[in-house]
């Protein structure tokens, strides 16, 4: 019997796993996909929100602020890219100025530091490509951008190194309450646990409702995005939000941590929990709305589009804590935006709850620091050449668009919780994420991954399951 079974290897589940790995406990993470970071955690804006959005007093507001504060240190401990570039909420109509002021006040109430209302001139000086209609803007210096994949993967790797087990391709079918603890039925067998953390994202309601009479209901709220070429990456230098309200939440424009430009998301409630397809209407809406706050957006530079599902719980707030009628079952549900920002705080909160519940003692061997995949481009030439001399794979560039070497791809496959699919390699190294979208590097990455996994290339998948790349 495990002390804790965490269901879901998204950013929340992995943050909890990492924080709990400080303690002496048998912990296991069950994930239905082949890798970590396969659901909502992989398809979002990659924004670290300042925290003025959520209603004061809500868990969202609290977690957002704490998560934002912790992000800097966490990114250093776990070596994932994060930059505090600041963000702007743009107001383009005089009659909405009051709402901008309200947002400012809400931010102050939530404890957001450094908020400033900027004049039209100050805004344009900061971001020359903002619409000429701009009246004013709310500047939040603590806003930032993060690589959502790297963050999720880093948390998971660190948890794994500290003893947390990860079982992939293990979908939970049923959970039963036992006299002491839970039996978790999966595709591959039964798991027993004293406590369960339900971090199943869009399916968290389904799991919760298996053990609790107080039903949760999670509505998949679809958000579609367009990712633009790095040529367009400097069009704005911070995240540009529309004023929430009047036209719904609006479409943001932001540089990504790797220098692309991201435009989106739309916001549509759907029924299908697997509905991560993009739609004609959605893509059209992005193009139409994005131009409202930012001028001359080079939408011709789109290199890919994608869609993600926000796990919107009916109550509108995060649901974190022990289910009242199911002791030992801890929910981490309704984690929609600002879920990525909040994850560092959510992980700590869950760890505290579980520590108390199970009376866990600190582990003496815990090591909270982790090094990411070595990127030779970050080294001075001398060191880079030393690296290549020692391991020539670091001199062989496989993905030409993103300049990713064979050395990095091999590292991605071999490290703890290494990649086992082409998308896994992509999320860990960026190979295939550039402007040719893997046109040139796919056959090479396949060759390297097959060699590393010691399987035939015909066995390789894009993203696990039936997503085989070849049909022999």
């Amino acid at each position, binding site marked *: 019997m495990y002390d804790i079974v965490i269901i879901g290897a998204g950013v929340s589940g992995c943050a909890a796993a990492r924080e709990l790995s400080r303690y002496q406990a048998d912990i296991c993470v069950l994930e239905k996909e082949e890798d970590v970071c396969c659901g909502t955690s992989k398809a979002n804006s990659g924004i670290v929100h300042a925290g003025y959005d959520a209603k004061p007093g809500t868990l969202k507001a609290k977690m957002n602020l704490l998560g934002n504060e912790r992000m800097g240190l966490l990114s250093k401990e776990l070596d994932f890219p994060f930059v505090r570039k600041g963000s702007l909420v743009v107001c383009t109509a005089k009659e909405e100025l009051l709402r901008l002021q309200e947002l400012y006040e809400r931010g102050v109430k939530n404890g957001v530091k450094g908020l400033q209302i900027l004049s039209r001139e100050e805004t344009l000086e900061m971001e020359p490509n903002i619409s000429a209609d701009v009246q004013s803007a709310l500047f939040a210096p603590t806003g930032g951008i993060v690589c959502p994949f790297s963050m999720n993967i880093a948390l998971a790797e660190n948890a794994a190194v500290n003893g947390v087990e990860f079982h992939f391709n293990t979908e939970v079918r049923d959970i039963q309450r036992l006299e002491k603890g839970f039996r978790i039925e999966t595709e591959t067998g039964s798991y027993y646990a004293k406590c369960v953390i339900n971090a199943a994202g869009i399916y968290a309601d389904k799991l919760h409702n298996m053990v609790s009479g107080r039903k949760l209901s999670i509505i998949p709220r679809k958000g579609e995005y*367009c*990712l633009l070429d790095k040529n367009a990456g400097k069009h704005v230098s911070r995240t540009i939000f529309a004023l929430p309200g009047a036209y719904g939440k609006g479409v943001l424009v932001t540089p990504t941590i790797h220098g692309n430009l991201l435009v989106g998301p739309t916001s549509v409630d759907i029924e299908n929990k*697997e509905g*991560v*397809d*993009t*739609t*004609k209407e*959605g*893509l059209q809406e992005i193009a139409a709305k994005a131009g409202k706050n930012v001028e001359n957006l080079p939408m011709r530079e*789109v*290199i*890919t*589009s*994608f869609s993600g599902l926000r796990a919107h719980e009916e109550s509108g707030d995060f649901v974190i804590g022990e289910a009242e009628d199911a002791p030992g079952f801890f929910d981490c549900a309704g984690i929609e935006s600002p879920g990525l920002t909040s994850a560092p705080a959510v992980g700590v909160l869950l760890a505290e709850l579980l520590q108390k519940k199970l009376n866990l003692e600190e582990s003496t061997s815990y090591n909270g620091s982790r090094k990411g995949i070595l990127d030779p481009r970050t080294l001075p*030439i001398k060191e*880079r*050449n030393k690296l*290549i*001399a020692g391991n*020539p*794979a*670091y*001199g*062989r*560039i496989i993905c*030409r668009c993103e*300049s990713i070497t064979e050395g990095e791809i091999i590292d991605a496959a071999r490290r703890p919780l290494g990649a086992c699919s082409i998308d896994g390699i992509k999320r860990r190294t960026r190979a295939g994420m550039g*402007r*040719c*979208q*893997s*046109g*040139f590097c*796919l*056959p090479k990455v*396949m*060759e390297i991954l097959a060699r590393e996994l010691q399987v035939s*290339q*015909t066995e390789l*998948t*894009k*993203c*696990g*399951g*039936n*997503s*085989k*790349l*070849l*049909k*022999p």
Partner: protein
Amino acid sequence: MTDYELVIIGGGPAGLAAGISARKNGIERILILERDKELGGILNQCIHNGFGLHTFQEELTGPEYADRYIQEVRKLRIECRLNTMVLDISPERKVTAVNPSDGMFEIQAQAVILAMGCRERPRGALNIPGYRPAGIFSAGTAQRLVNIEGYMPGKEVVILGSGDIGLIMARRMTLEGASVKAVAELMPYSSGLKRNIVQCLDDYGIPLMLSHTVVRIWGKERLEGITLAEVDEKGRPIPGTEEEISCDTLLLSVGLIPENELSKDCGIVLDPSTKGPEVNESLETTSEGIFACGNVLHVHDLVDYVSEEAELAGKYAAQYIKESKASQPVECIKEGKNGQSAVYRKEDKSSRPAELIREIRLIPESGVSYTVPQKISPARMPEQVTVRFRVRSIFHRCSVGVYFGERCIVQKKRLIMAPGEMESIMLSREKLREFPEIKTITIRIEEQMEEA
């Protein structure tokens, strides 16, 4: 830092022919940098025949065509470094590259020839809605998987785009046992060569669906099907014409883009129409001493023309190297009204009279999408310059009009012209000399009058 007279970026057909030509024009220290593990570029995966009809008067396969040049490069002892990715070219022609055996290194070149080729447009650029399953490949990626790696990407195939690689892959997949259900083309005409439509589609009974596009992708893990729809004259899908086709593979052949990231970073001016560098009659880019040829300059229809163009780039680069080395002034012909000739140093641009730095812009108009070169210096041009261009759509019974300023100089009658095929006209120095005042040469497609 090592010094070379000439560094060529890319060891495909353009780079190889440019290197051979530069050597034959007297350049000793030449280095070809190739990112792949072998020379030949994309020709290595083009195992079909049809290459070399113009160059060698025989039908060769891609690898055979490449091999002729590779042998020549070896014979001429031109140095090549493989697995070498160029990371940067400075306007002063310092080339930074990396490979497994040398690590990162810098080379100072007197001249550089850009021969990086082109890449395929990905699905994302089309923004086709739907899921993102396995089974969607660009046609060239599939070609590499089948012809080099020896793997079949799928069994039931739809191809979007009728570019040449798409057409070739329709036949290739069929020969390997796949069922190719359709080739859909957004435009009302194919952008591929006529001969490829006949030999790759018609001969195998594969339908070419013009004015059609993919509007939806089905299947979450592996592709399960696509929705095809007819489009109107503006390329918008017509409601009610949707048709679902089940397939496990979608190949995209929706356009090629010259790979000019290095050129752009170097500050070289690109032509928005070709997406390649803007060049003069010597195929020199706007950055002095940096030349361009092959698909990085503009996407070609036949490799034979790539070789031809690259040979010129090699020759002009050689000339440039010799000129900039020569301590004595370089002879340039001045085109004064009285026909006097004068001698000027090339580097010393300021002292050159207006006649010598005068450049004539070539203007593509009505039906012509671009020209290469984009400008010509009457003083520096050789006796004849080939101007290559493409037309925007299909023209029947038309003529190509060449205008020096306002004046029509040439009118070449043509029965049919198509965007898939490159066109050319010749400009002669002699003729240009007759018009010392003109600033532009316009090329346009004109309706031909019906003959009575």
